[in-house]
């Protein structure tokens, strides 16, 4: 109703107490192709769907190494994601230079969040249109955070962002309780299955998905295509044994996705 009157400017509140520009920025994240993260006690895995605009072009780079112990997967405006990755890399280098130790993930995430918040309170700026899944390891263990254009961030056991991420989230919600004790291989398998969930029937191949790992004794690195294809092949055999439940779950997820845009009068997404 009032949405169009109060949404021109990020510095204008709506009567319901919402900043529509920020919410629109979060919509941009939902439009991007899916990115998934999950963690155990010792490892964090990031996986994402690589969509190319045409067969002739190369895939968008969605996973960035920030430091040996931190990596990030993005969904939304990739250009914004690239710029924020450069900022994160810089922060890590500067911290390491001054303190001769790696930047704790929690600190980096707060700095990122504060940077995002600035853009929600300046009339000459716009919010970053990208959601970041920050995966990292520090003295306090393995961490996965989600940074939102609103300036909010949360720590997660597992999370998925981007288009059709609800299907992946449903799968992760069923399995996340086991993740803490999972082995590295099981974690990667769960990540690949989550990616497959978002593909809605399309065949999962290493050419459309990227996987990155960071863990105790293992620096952040992106797995090469061959390794990923081998992993896909090794568990594809299990696909036949998968109970029909995921299929039913997908159908339900599709319906809820379709109804989401209509629910405008609900709680502002950034309050969640």
């Amino acid at each position, binding site marked *: 109703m009032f949405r169009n009157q109060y949404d021109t400017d990020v510095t204008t509140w709506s009567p319901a107490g919402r900043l529509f520009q920020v919410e629109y920025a979060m919509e941009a994240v939902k439009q991007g192709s899916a990115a998934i993260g999950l963690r155990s006690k010792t490892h964090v895995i990031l996986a994402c769907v690589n969509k190319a605009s045409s067969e002739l072009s190369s895939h968008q780079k969605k996973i960035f*190494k920030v430091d040996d112990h931190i990596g990030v997967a993005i969904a939304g405006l990739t250009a914004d994601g690239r710029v924020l990755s*450069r900022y994160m*890399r*810089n922060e890590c*280098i*500067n911290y*390491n*230079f001054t303190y001769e130790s790696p930047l704790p993930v929690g600190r980096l995430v707060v700095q990122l969040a504060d940077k995002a918040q600035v853009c929600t309170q300046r009339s000459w700026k716009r919010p970053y249109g990208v959601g970041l899944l920050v995966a990292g390891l520090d003295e306090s263990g393995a961490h996965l955070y989600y940074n939102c254009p609103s300036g909010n961030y949360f720590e997660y056991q597992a999370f998925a962002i981007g288009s059709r991420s609800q299907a992946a989230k449903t799968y992760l919600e069923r399995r996340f309780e086991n993740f803490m004790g999972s082995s590295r291989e099981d974690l990667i398998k769960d990540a690949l299955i989550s990616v497959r969930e978002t593909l809605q029937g399309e065949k999962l191949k290493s050419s459309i998905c990227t996987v990155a790992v960071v863990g105790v004794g293992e620096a952040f690195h992106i797995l090469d295509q061959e390794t990923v294809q081998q992993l896909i092949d090794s568990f594809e055999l299990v696909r036949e044994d998968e109970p029909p439940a995921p299929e039913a779950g997908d159908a339900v997820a599709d319906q809820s996705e379709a109804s989401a845009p209509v629910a405008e009068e609900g709680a502002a997404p950034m309050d969640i």
Partner: protein
Amino acid sequence: MTKQQANWSPYDNNGGSCVAIAGADYCVIAADTRMSTGYNILTREYSKITKLADKCMMASSGFQADVKALQKLLAARHLIYQHQHNKQMSCPAMAQLLSNTLYYKRFFPYYSFNVLGGLDSEGKGCVYTYDAVGSYERVGYSSQGSGSTLIMPFLDNQLKSPSPLLLPAQDAVTPLSESEAVDLVKTVFASATERDIYTGDKLEIVVVNAEGIRSEYMDLRKD
């Protein structure tokens, strides 16, 4: 009215010598491990050699605090390069970066006398030698530091062509093998240790070749 003199100096000289010799497919970089101040020894086991990139090592003598700051800066710059270019810096690229970094502080220099050694983009050994403000040159061999005045003439004698009148002009009398170069370095340091009080304790030798990087140590006189 006499000119005002400084009552303290921001610099100190921690002594020591560095050498690097380039071969057809290897590079030997060596430095002693003694760190001193004035007539005192601070420690007998301080490494003056650092790895800047996969195939690029730097040995620096002079004021070790400035050397440390320089090493940290170059390491950070290398990280940025890797993020931007998705690959390691080549030795010639690092050589230029070091030169620019030194000249940046032209009016309050790093008191650091550097020798860069590694493999160039073709896999051949390369050595770059610097002064404190970044003037540099690619050479076949070089030495820097307190013992360099003793070491350099000896290296010239062993490695440079016997006479400029000899035709065709040769860089070295005979191309050295890796083990010959390492032996030469050991000989050179043993001699320098005899007469230079700031050189001694232990010799650290690093060899860079196609297989990677390996280190070797040799004891030197401790007096």
